[in-house]
């Protein structure tokens, strides 16, 4: 069975995943598709690995290195998660 999630639900889910790692509350409150993990949320780059591992666990998908390279923003992550979920 495929899990079908709309974009807004996915962003909400992603927001809960990144929450433990953010260092800018205001940017987090205003999180949108355009939000950048490092420049806006000030997530420590080593914690970006945790975000990716958490996304893999939560969505039960595998983020390969090529996909990981792009995962610097909410928008890119949503696109990658959507693609990987569709492949399941």
């Amino acid at each position, binding site marked *: 069975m495929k899990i079908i999630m709309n974009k807004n639900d996915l962003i909400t889910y992603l927001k809960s995943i990144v929450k433990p790692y953010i260092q800018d509350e205001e940017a987090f409150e205003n999180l949108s598709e355009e939000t950048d993990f490092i420049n806006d949320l000030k997530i*420590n780059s*080593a*914690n970006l*690995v945790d975000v*990716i591992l958490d996304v*893999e666990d939560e969505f039960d998908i595998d983020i390969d290195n090529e996909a990981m390279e*792009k995962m610097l923003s909410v928008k890119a992550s949503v696109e990658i998660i959507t693609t990987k979920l569709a492949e399941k």
Partner: protein
Amino acid sequence: MIGNDIVDLKLAAVQSNWKRKGFLDKIFTNKEQDLILNAKDPSIMVWLLWSMKESAYKIYMRQNSLRIFAPKRFECDVNTSQNTVKINEILYFTSSTISKDSIHTIARLNLNTSIRTNYFKMKNDSYTIQHNTTYNSLKEGVTQQFDIPISKIEINKNKMGIPYINELSKVSISISHHGIFGAYAFEFIEPCKEYKILWV
């Protein structure tokens, strides 16, 4: 071009669990993982290699005007003469200072330029303190190096998050902070004519 990175080891120990399943494999090559697992202090090796990758990435990003999150593609070589990081056949030279509480690494493309760098402990780890202390220290360093009044130095960041000083377009600068540690590095070519002319 220059890049630098600082790791607060105490913070890293609580902020990141490198023993987490999948963590090492997302960041480190097999060779690097061997280095870590055989190291006398594996945590130090994790953060040494990480700071090498990060500081080299800061140069890579500038060269290519491209942001990527691909730590595994930055391959580290740790040896007794000159540590290096390599990606796409481009070699970055790194040097690291390891102390009890921090690791500071500088990466450079060219070993013949002049650099000025410093790392320091801050009074606390609030993000604002980290940011302001690091910016002010960089300004002090620039003032001393180029004899420019501190009030004239304005640090900006471009769209990619790369810092620069308006009037010193030929000076490559890099800023880093983590926990209670901050660091900066800048690189310039001597004699620094460009810098003087502007201010006399």
